[in-house]
C-alpha cells in the first residue's frame, strides 16, 4: 500500500480567477523510501496540491472532490483537531523562503523544542541539540541559543528541516526548499535531504520548477500544467524520453547548449576594467566602529567587440555591484573603467550623458523595472526624449522596437501591470535598445522568469545581439544559462574574480577550487537533456 495516496483531487479557485480550478482531478501516490518530484511552472497548482495534504490551504480555496489516503485514513475527512495531531508528527513540511519562515522573536532552540512539546514529546535541550547536529549544523549549543536573524539562509533551512523531522514523520513535503538558496548551498541541502531520506526510509514529496534538481534527486516525477498532471513516471523515463509535449517543451527549455567553439574574439576592447574596487560601510554609531565591507576587490576584465562575457557568481559575490559600477549607478573608489579610451570612473555626472547612448542596461526584476504609472510606449520613448528626440519621433521608434521584441503594436498604449513577466522583460529590453547602444549590460535578465519563458528571452537576446552587433556583459548566477549564452566567462567569489576564460575551457577544466565547487553544485549536471543529444540543427554561433 502506498504511503500517501492522492486520488482525484479537485480544488476550486474563488470566482474571477484565471481558471475554475487550482488543481483538477489530480492523482499521485508516494511510496515509502522514495522521492517523488512534482514539477511545474508558477501557477501549475503544485503548491496547492501539497497544501491540501496538510490542510494548510488559504480559506478561499475549496476542496471540491477527492481523497488523500494516509495511514489508513482519508486526510480530507479528518476533523481539524485530528489533522493538527498529524502535522509535524507524522507529516512534516518545509517551505521555500527560509528567511521569513522562522519566528524572529523566538530562539531557534525554542522553536525546535516547540514541535516536540506540542506533541507531548520531551523537548529537552539535549534532544534539541541532537536534532541540530543531525542536520549538520556546527556548534549546536550556540545555534540553539541564537535568534533567527543571526543565521544565514542555508542555516535557517537546515533548522526548518530539523523541525520538520524532529518527530520522525513518515512523509516529508518540501515545497521548493532550495529555490531561494545559492547554488552551492542548494547542493548541500539536497544532499542532506537525500541522506536523511535514505537513512530513515521516509517518503519525500519534493516540489520544484528546476529539472536539474529533478535529475539530481528524484526517483519518480509528476509534471503539472494548469492544475493537471500531464505526465508521470520513473525519473529516468520522464527525463530522457518525455512523452507529453509540455514536458518536452520544458526540458527543451533547460539551457544546455554549450556555445560552439567560435574563434576567440579578436576585436578591439570595448570595455576594460582595471583594479576596480568598491566597498560599503556598515554599522557605525556612538559606540562601535564602522566596518568596511568590500563588495568588489581589484576587478580586472576585458570585453571585446561583439562578444558576450558572462559574470558568474552567487549572491554577495559582487557581480551586480560591478555591473552597476560600469553604468555609474555606484561609484567605485579605485580603479579604471575604460570604455574605448575614456576612463568612465573619472567622469562627473554631467559628462556622462553622451555615454548613456552607448551603454545600456537590462534589469532583473520585470515587476520592478518598469514605472507602473507610465504607458509602455512612454517608457520606451523616455530615453530618446531625454536625449533630444521629439516626442512623435520617439514614439514611432518605440513602436519599431516593440515589433523587434515581438510584442504587438497595441502594447504601447497599455500599462506594465497588464503584461506578464516575460512580456515586461521584453519591454525592458526594448527600452534599453531605444538609444541604440553599443554595450548592453544584462543584470540577471532571466532569473525571475519561468523556465519556458527564460528560453524565449534568451533566444530573443541572442537574435538581437547578432542583428544589432551588440557587445554584452551578462550577469547570472545560473551556470547553465552562462554556458548557453556566453563565449567567455568570469567567475566571482566575494568580490574577487577568481577565474576567467573561454566558457568551454573553464567549464571543462576549472582551475580555481571555487569554480570547481560551483560546477559541482549544478544540480543534475550528469544528466544530458535529450534535446542536446541530437546534433544542432540551425543556428551556429
Amino acid at each position, binding site marked *: 500500500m502506498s504511503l500517501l495516496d492522492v486520488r482525484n483531487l479537485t480544488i476550486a479557485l474563488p470566482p474571477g480567477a484565471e481558471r475554475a480550478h487550482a488543481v483538477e482531478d489530480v492523482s499521485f501516490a508516494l511510496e515509502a523510501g522514495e522521492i517523488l518530484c512534482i514539477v511545474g511552472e508558477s501557477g501549475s497548482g503544485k503548491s496547492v496540491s501539497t497544501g491540501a495534504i496538510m490542510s494548510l490551504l488559504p480559506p478561499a480555496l475549496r476542496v471540491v472532490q477527492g481523497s488523500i489516503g494516509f495511514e489508513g485514513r482519508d486526510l480530507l475527512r479528518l476533523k481539524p483537531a485530528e489533522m493538527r495531531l498529524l502535522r509535524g508528527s507524522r507529516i512534516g513540511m518545509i517551505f521555500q523562503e527560509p528567511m521569513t519562515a522562522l519566528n524572529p522573536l523566538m530562539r531557534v532552540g525554542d522553536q525546535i523544542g516547540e514541535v516536540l512539546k506540542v506533541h507531548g514529546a520531551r523537548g529537552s535541550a539535549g534532544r534539541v541539540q541532537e536534532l541540530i547536529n543531525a542536520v549538520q549544523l556546527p556548534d549546536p549549543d550556540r545555534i540553539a541559543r541564537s535568534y533567527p536573524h543571526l543565521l544565514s539562509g542555508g542555516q535557517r533551512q537546515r533548522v526548518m528541516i530539523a523541525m520538520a523531522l524532529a518527530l520522525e514523520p513518515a512523509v516529508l513535503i518540501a515545497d521548493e526548499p532550495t529555490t531561494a538558496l545559492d547554488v552551492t548551498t542548494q547542493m548541500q541541502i539536497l544532499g542532506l535531504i537525500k541522506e536523511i531520506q535514505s537513512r530513515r526510509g521516509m517518503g519525500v514529496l519534493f516540489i520544484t520548477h528546476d529539472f536539474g534538481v529533478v535529475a539530481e534527486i528524484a526517483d519518480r516525477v509528476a509534471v503539472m500544467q494548469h492544475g493537471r498532471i500531464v505526465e508521470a513516471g520513473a525519473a529516468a523515463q520522464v527525463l530522457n524520453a518525455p512523452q507529453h509535449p509540455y514536458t518536452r517543451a520544458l526540458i527543451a527549455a533547460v539551457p544546455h547548449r554549450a556555445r560552439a567553439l567560435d574563434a576567440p574574439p579578436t576585436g578591439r576592447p570595448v570595455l576594460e576594467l582595471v583594479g576596480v574596487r568598491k566597498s560599503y560601510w556598515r554599522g557605525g554609531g556612538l559606540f562601535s566602529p564602522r566596518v568596511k565591507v568590500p563588495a568588489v576587490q581589484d576587478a580586472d576584465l576585458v570585453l571585446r567587440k561583439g562578444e558576450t562575457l558572462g559574470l558568474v557568481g552567487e549572491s554577495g559575490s559582487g557581480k551586480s555591484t560591478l555591473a552597476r559600477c560600469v553604468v555609474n549607478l555606484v561609484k567605485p573608489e579605485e580603479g579604471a573603467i575604460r570604455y574605448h579610451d575614456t576612463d568612465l570612473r573619472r567622469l562627473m555626472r554631467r559628462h556622462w550623458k553622451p555615454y548613456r547612448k552607448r551603454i545600456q542596461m537590462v534589469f532583473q*526584476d520585470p515587476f520592478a523595472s518598469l514605472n*507602473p504609472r507610465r504607458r509602455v510606449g512612454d517608457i520606451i520613448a523616455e530615453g530618446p526624449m531625454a536625449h533630444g528626440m521629439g516626442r512623435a519621433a520617439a514614439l514611432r521608434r518605440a513602436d519599431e522596437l516593440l515589433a523587434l521584441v515581438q510584442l504587438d503594436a497595441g502594447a504601447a498604449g497599455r500599462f506594465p501591470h497588464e503584461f506578464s513577466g516575460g512580456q515586461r522583460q521584453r519591454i525592458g529590453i526594448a527600452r534599453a535598445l531605444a538609444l541604440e547602444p553599443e554595450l548592453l549590460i544584462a543584470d540577471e535578465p532571466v532569473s525571475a522568469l519561468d523556465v519556458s519563458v527564460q528560453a524565449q528571452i534568451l533566444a530573443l537576446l541572442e537574435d538581437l545581439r547578432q542583428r544589432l552587433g551588440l557587445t554584452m556583459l551578462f550577469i547570472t548566477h545560473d551556470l547553465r544559462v552562462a554556458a548557453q549564452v556566453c563565449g567567455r566567462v568570469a567567475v566571482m567569489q566575494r568580490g574577487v574574480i577568481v577565474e576567467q576564460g573561454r566558457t568551454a575551457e573553464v567549464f571543462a577544466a576549472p582551475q580555481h577550487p571555487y569554480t570547481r565547487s560551483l560546477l559541482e553544485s549544478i544540480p543534475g549536471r550528469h544528466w544530458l537533456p535529450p534535446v542536446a543529444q541530437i546534433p544542432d540543427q540551425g543556428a551556429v554561433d
Partner: protein
Amino acid sequence: MNGVLGDFFGTFLRNRGAAVGLAVLALVGVAAATAGLLFPYSPWDMRGAPFMPPGEMEFLLGSDSLGRDVAAGIAYGARVSLLIGAVSTVVAVLLGITLGAVAGYAGGVVDDAIMRFTEFFQTVPSFMLAVVLVAIFSPSISSIVAAIAIVSWPPVARVIRAEFLSLRSREFVHAAEVLGRSRTAIVFRVILPNALSPIIVLASLMVASAILLESGLSFLGLGDPNLISWGFMIGAGRSVIRIAWWMSVFPGIAIFLTVLALNLVGEGLSDALNPRLARRR
C-alpha cells in the same frame, strides 16, 4: 488614464463606508455653503430668549446663553472647520513633501539633519505646541492655520521620505538614471508620482485631525474671536451643561460626523489604491 480612474472610483464607491462618508461630507459642504441662505442672519445675533430647548420658538436645535441660534452656529461653524481643516492640511502636506523628498533623495548628512528636525516636532506634545503658538501669536484664523500646519507636517515628511528611500533603489528609477535623465526629472517625474498615493490617504486623515485640533483650540478659548466654530460652542456650553445640554451636544455631533466621514473616506481611498498596487505584481 480613463480605465484606471474609472477602476479607482468603482472600487472606492463599492466600499459602503466610504460612500456614506462621501455623502456626509457633501452634506456638511452644502450646509456650509448655504448657511447664508438657511440662516440669513449672523450666528452671533441674539434671536430670542436664552436657553430655549430644541424645537421651541423656531430654534431647531435650541438657543444658547445669549439667545443665539445653535443651528445657525453649526451651519456657519461648518465653514470654519472645513476651511481651516483644508488649508492647514494643504500647507502641512506641502511642507512635509518638500522636507521628506529632500531628506529621502539626498540622504547622508542632509537626511540626518532633516530627520532630527522632524523628530523634534514629533516629540513635543503637538496639541500643547499648538496652544503655545496660538497663545503667543494671538488667536486669529491665520495663526490657527499656521499652528496646525506646524504640528501636522512631520508624518507627511516621514512617509514621503520612506517612499523615496524605497523607490530610490527600485529598478525603474535606476533605469531612468541609466537612460540619462536629469536629476530633477528623476525626482519630479519618476519618483514623486509614485510616492504620492500614501499621501492622498494621509491627507484625508489629516483634515480630520486638523478639525479635531481646531475644535480643541477654540474650546480652550483660542479660536478666532470673530468666527463662530463648533469647539467654541461646546466650550461656551460647558459651564451651563446642567441646564442647556443641547449647547454642547449638537456641535459635538457635528464634529463627530464630519471627522468620521473623513476617516471613512480615507479608509476607502486606502483600499481603493492598494488593490491596484497589489495587481501590479
